[in-house]
């Protein structure tokens, strides 16, 4: 797969350009209370974190089957840095948060920015260390895997408790953090499945190590995570439904009162549970690349939809700028992936 090989410098140039574009869109053409960038960040962060974390977890459990897709997944680690750069833009958009008007010790622009940015950077460093070590099968890879996973959990919890939950104060849910990093892993697995599909297409004809087993296991993982996700979702929903505390249900009520919101909310259940569960129930499907691929796409859509549902009642969203952001980050990630930065780095 040498074709479409770009070198690092180009990647960085292009990234810079995109960053510039985004800077313009975010600073000039943005009106108050617009949360598009937050949405973009939420989605991509869970994706990228998920990829690396998935590999880390596989390494720790000595999963041999991950090998075919391992490098491809690891190749996304520079995105951790890119995302932390984009987070800086968010700092100029904290007006989407209720605490913007009257902050406190914990919630004020500077501290908010500082703590999150630092965690993002740490995560990047940990990710890089792990990626490189694991890439060359170093003997400290397990150590770095643990380190990365630790900060992965911290970072995802921060996303949940610090980025999303304050939009709905005084609503809060202790499970929200765990829910997020499980979803992140879920999306990571989905990406793995997609990569399997791509590789299997490439592998057609050529003699590259077959991904059959990997595909099957990834699909099984996807299946398992659909159940796990359902479990977490249910155990969060049930507690809120049963308690019926006005403060707690306010979150739900907002998201199921309006018809279109209700449709969106229910579609999450279908995309993240019903579809993967029912499709991947049978063994035959699990080893069928196209079907697994489609399922993975549905799952990713679900992840996006859910973030959308988080934000929709709280902030205003600008489809155009969403498009630009996604396009931008998308291109960067593909470039990085194609470039296999890991080769040239170190």
């Amino acid at each position, binding site marked *: 797969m040498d074709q479409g090989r770009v070198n690092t410098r180009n990647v960085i140039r292009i990234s810079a350009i995109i960053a510039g574009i985004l800077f313009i869109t975010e600073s000039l053409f943005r009106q108050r209370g617009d949360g598009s960038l937050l949405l973009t960040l939420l989605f991509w962060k869970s994706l990228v974190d998920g990829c690396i974390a998935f590999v880390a977890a596989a390494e720790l459990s000595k999963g041999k089957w991950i090998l075919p897709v391992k490098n491809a997944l690891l190749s996304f680690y520079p995105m951790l840095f890119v995302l932390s750069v984009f987070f800086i833009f968010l700092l100029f958009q904290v007006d989407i948060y209720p605490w913007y008007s009257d902050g406190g010790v914990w919630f004020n622009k500077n501290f908010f920015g500082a703590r999150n940015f630092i965690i993002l950077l740490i995560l990047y460093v940990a990710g890089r260390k792990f990626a490189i070590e694991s890439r060359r099968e170093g003997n400290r890879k397990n150590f770095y895997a643990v380190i990365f996973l630790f900060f992965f959990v911290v970072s995802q919890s921060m996303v949940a408790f610090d980025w999303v939950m304050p939009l709905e104060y005084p609503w809060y849910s202790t499970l929200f953090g765990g829910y997020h990093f499980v979803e992140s892993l879920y999306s990571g697995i989905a990406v793995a499945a997609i990569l399997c599909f791509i590789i299997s297409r490439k592998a057609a004809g050529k003699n590259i190590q077959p991904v059959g087993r990997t595909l099957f296991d990834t699909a099984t993982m996807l299946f398992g995570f659909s159940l796990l996700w359902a479990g977490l979702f*249910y155990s969060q*929903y*049930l507690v809120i*439904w*049963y308690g019926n505390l006005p403060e707690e249900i306010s979150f739900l009520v907002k998201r199921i009162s309006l018809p279109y919101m209700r449709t969106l909310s229910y579609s999450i259940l279908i995309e993240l549970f019903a579809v993967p569960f029912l499709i991947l129930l049978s063994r035959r499907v699990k080893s069928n690349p196209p079907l697994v691929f489609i399922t993975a796409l549905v799952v990713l859509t679900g992840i996006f939809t859910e973030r959308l549902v988080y934000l929709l009642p709280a902030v205003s969203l600008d489809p155009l700028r969403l498009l630009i952001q996604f396009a931008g980050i998308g291109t960067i990630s593909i470039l990085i992936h194609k470039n296999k930065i890991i080769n040239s780095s170190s």
Partner: protein
Amino acid sequence: MSQHFVFDEKNVFLNKLRELLKSGVPQKNISVITPYHVHEVDEILVSAPSKLRIFTFAGALLGGIAGFAFPIYTTLSWKINVGGKPVVSIPAFVIIAFELTILFGALATFFGFLLFSKLPVLKQIIDPVDYDKQFVILVKNGEK
């Protein structure tokens, strides 16, 4: 009058098995006894895959349906307002349904297993035939 061959060494046993089949002994006349599940045997004596999943699926489905039907029926048979919750509170009944799905599924699978693998075998219980070696090949009406 059947005859049997006993082995302690897996490979010897497998070779003998292949040899028997080559020598034209019909597969239905041969059955083997192993101390644990030996994959090679499946490959040598090809047989239809297990149908156990049918039982599993049926049981689980039944359980799921029962798990919803039962609470809904009972609550409707006497509508009592507790804590202002809806009389038919699906979120609460999901748990019952889930548990029953698993219960029925598991039991159905177990009984399906007994059925398929013809257990319990009465004469094996009354006077069990055990071989002093690990691997055994039984050949019916002793054709060589």
